[in-house]
């Protein structure tokens, strides 16, 4: 019985062959189905619903008033004290970084 085991094991291992791809993968990749169209609209609908929910909650919890007040205080401060030079500097640095980032993205 053990002899049979050894005989078959040896025979099968010797017969084991690695099969070269020879374009098989490409054929498989060409035959793959495209993702089903019905799944495409699901994330878009989900995003839309979540955006509407976020806007409703923002309005319900007084977000509009908070933003209005913040803007009012900021503009009031600018008008009474002038714009801080550091704010302009920070905005310029941010702008330069943004432009560089876009340029790199386009170059890629």
């Amino acid at each position, binding site marked *: 019985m053990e*002899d*049979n*085991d050894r*005989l*078959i*094991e040896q*025979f*099968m*291992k*010797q*017969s*084991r*062959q*690695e*099969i*070269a*791809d020879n374009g*098989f*993968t490409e*054929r*498989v*990749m060409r*035959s*793959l*189905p495209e*993702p089903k169209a019905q799944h495409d609209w699901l994330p878009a609908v989900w995003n839309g619903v979540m955006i509407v929910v976020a806007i409703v909650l923002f309005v319900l919890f007084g977000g509009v008033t908070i933003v209005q007040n913040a803007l009012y205080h900021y503009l009031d401060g600018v008008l009474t004290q002038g714009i801080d030079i550091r704010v302009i500097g920070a905005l310029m640095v941010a702008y330069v970084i943004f432009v560089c980032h876009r340029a790199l993205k386009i170059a890629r």
Partner: protein
Amino acid sequence: MNSLSDIALVTQVVVMHNKGAFDQLVRKYQSQVRRFFLNQTCGDSELSDDLAQDTFIKAYTSLNSFKGMANFSTWLYRIAYNVFFDYIRSQKTTSDIEEVAWDANYSNEQQDIGQKMDVYAALQQLKEAERTCITLFYMEEVEIKKIAEITGMAEGTVKSHLSRGKEKMANYLKQNGYGR
């Protein structure tokens, strides 16, 4: 062993629909899957490639059902086994025969000379289930537990198929001058 790279590739396909990641999986496992079919069909390379292609397409469309609990290669073998037995069933219903007889002449496209020809001739002596168990166990070195997982058979049934297949195959090999 389920390699992390397999799980990473599966994740890329499922989450990002990255076909390039699936291309890598096919390249990695094509030899294993095609060899499985070559052994099951006793060397019919054209049929083997068709069935292997079906296997990868099925794997692609049901990749989100791969949970990473099982080895990716075991999961793939399971699909291959189902594809093969669906094919066998369809042949049986159309030709109404008990065993699908593989045309030995059809298999000559592979370089099946010498030992390669012998292995297919030896495998032809076995029933389909015995052939599956013998090739997975001896050629692919898959454990009995995993073979049971792939085929959906009980471990005891796998052992019986192995035992019967081993006896038939050993007799055939001895009759043909092996093991002297």
